[in-house]
């Protein structure tokens, strides 16, 4: 049973955002570049301390928690970054077991099993001995997700995980995230993807929370015009999924 609630307010980047994330839900974080999505996720992951307000996991303020304790609860996948490392894919996934291992201990059987399971889940078992730099962007991204799963977190925070992925992998990834019983909070640029997979969406603009709720209520042409500055139409496809079609840049952004 998890009730993740937090409110963080930074001077500029994230302002007085109040939000409660329900256990097990897939929550999409949308908003234009620079709207504070990444900073918000970092606050939530305990990487940046909130300058005001509090982040709570299960009702407990995480201020004062060790990084290790937070890491056992919540995993964070950064936006794809360049990293030159000699690690192999399997090593990277095994990093997810760090919060559970002592300083002096190597991986034990549980660690290996969890890593194996995470690799299998992402279809990476065959690539585990591949050097990191020989992997494609999509393979790296999946490896990071597997690493997050290896943390066995109750909550996974992801910043633009579908960047660098081709369409098929985007959908595969979102299927996987939406299919877990873990709480997932994911920042997305692709509004259709967000509408299709997220239980709820949170729309951010200039550091503030503009709207939250089911995709249908958040993604309205008016808001898209006001926040993103685009002329968009929303509708439903034959399967009943919400679609967002962008007609172009709004002439007179509201």
């Amino acid at each position, binding site marked *: 049973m998890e009730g993740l609630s937090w409110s963080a307010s930074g001077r500029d980047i994230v302002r007085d955002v109040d939000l409660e994330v329900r256990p097990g839900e897939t929550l999409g974080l949308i908003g234009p570049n620079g709207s504070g999505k990444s900073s918000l996720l*970092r606050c939530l*992951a*305990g*990487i940046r301390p909130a300058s005001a307000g509090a982040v709570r996991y299960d009702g407990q303020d995480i201020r004062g928690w*060790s*990084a*290790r*304790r*937070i*890491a*056992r609860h*919540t*995993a*964070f996948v*950064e936006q794809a*970054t360049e*990293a*030159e*490392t*000699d*690690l*192999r894919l*399997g*090593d*990277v996934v*095994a*990093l*997810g077991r*760090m*919060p559970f*291992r002592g*300083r*002096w201990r*190597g*991986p034990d059987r549980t660690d*290996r099993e969890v890593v194996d399971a995470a690799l299998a889940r992402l279809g990476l078992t065959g690539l*585990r*001995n591949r*050097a*990191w*730099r*020989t992997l494609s962007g999509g393979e790296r991204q999946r490896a*990071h997700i597997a690493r997050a799963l290896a*943390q066995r977190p109750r909550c996974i925070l992801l910043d633009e995980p579908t960047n660098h992925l081709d369409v098929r992998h985007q959908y595969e990834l979102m299927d996987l995230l939406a299919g877990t019983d873990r709480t997932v909070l994911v920042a997305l640029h692709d509004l259709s993807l967000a509408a299709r997979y997220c239980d709820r969406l949170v729309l951010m603009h200039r550091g503030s929370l503009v709207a939250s709720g089911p995709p249908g209520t958040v993604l309205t042409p008016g808001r898209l015009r006001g926040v993103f500055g685009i002329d968009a139409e929303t509708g439903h496809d034959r399967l009943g999924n919400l679609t967002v079609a962008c007609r172009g840049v709004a002439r007179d952004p509201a």
Partner: protein
Amino acid sequence: MSVSPPDGSVSALHPAARGKLPSATSPDAGESPQDPSPDTGESPQNPPAAHPDAGESAPSATPARDGLSGLSAAALFTAGIAALAGSVVICVRVGSSDVGYSDLAGALGRRLGLVTEPLPPLLDSLIWDLRLPRVLLSALVGASLAVCGAALQAVTRNALADPYLLGVSSGASTGAVAVTVLSVGSGSLGLTGGAFAGALVSFGLLMLLLRRTGLDSSRIVLTGVVVGQLFTALTSLVLMTSGDADITRAITHWLLGSMASARWDAVAVCAVTGAAGMVVVQACAPALDGFSFGADTAASLGVDVRTTRLVLLVTTALLTSTAVASVGAIGFVGLIVPHGVRFLAGPLHRVLLPFTALAGGIFLVWADTLARVAFSPQEVPVGVFTALLGVPLFLLVLRRRGEL
């Protein structure tokens, strides 16, 4: 990482040190599973017959899935220790006047109270007062520098990082020069003390400058370079104004690194700080792996980023300062040995660090022995040989990884 090669080390005094970093190389990743024998890389100059135990059985062992799996890593590590011990014994024997195994055993036995029959005093003194401390100091300094290099490469995420990145060698040179010119203290003790003090002062300044920035990796590199340049300039200033050619020459020689003045007190100091420092760095091994993808990912994996960086910076600075103060700024060990070992033993620091220590020790023991005997009776600064041996090894590693 694209931070340009930092040359935190001395420079104004001797252009030779400049060449220390192969600036065009961007050794990054990619290890391919291959022959994991930890020895082939570090002591290629082994005299053929010399190393009964160093060929290192290393049965083309499984480059196991998790780097080296526990058992094979332990076996290889034991073999590495044997190789280091063998190197020490052999290198004590080699020199201008040869020392036999029995002489060595006699000198050791007498200290342990096992043998009563004394050796000729001159021979005994050669072994006990000169060769043994020198070889042991080489091993300790080599191990310390290599471990510092490995740690700093991970902390700064910069493949070109080396122990002098933090500018402590420049601080040490300023301290040494100041002490020499001002004739504070006496003899080598004054030089060592001054160098150590100088290194600490430069490191203090570095931390002061970094105080607000949260020890961000690229800032560590840049600030280290700035501090290094400042102290290099100060050294030049003191040298030029004092205008003593002898001092300039002595300092230059010292800066290139020399084990010639190795004595037991230096061995003791380096042993204590080296052991303590390496334990601390080893304790941070998981965190060093976590830094592979940057500070934020490390933090999300449970690493206390700021504390870990601080601990590692202070530890490596102390280790490096001790080494520089004892034997000068020996280049290249801290840069290439970690790369060579990473290539052989894999990048996971839990395994990498102990092997790096062993490899660094073996490497410097042999490099110093070469420096001693190659142009005997003339002695070449050991830094020259670490570079001469290091550059081809480094190129070899790059080539095997397909980067050159």
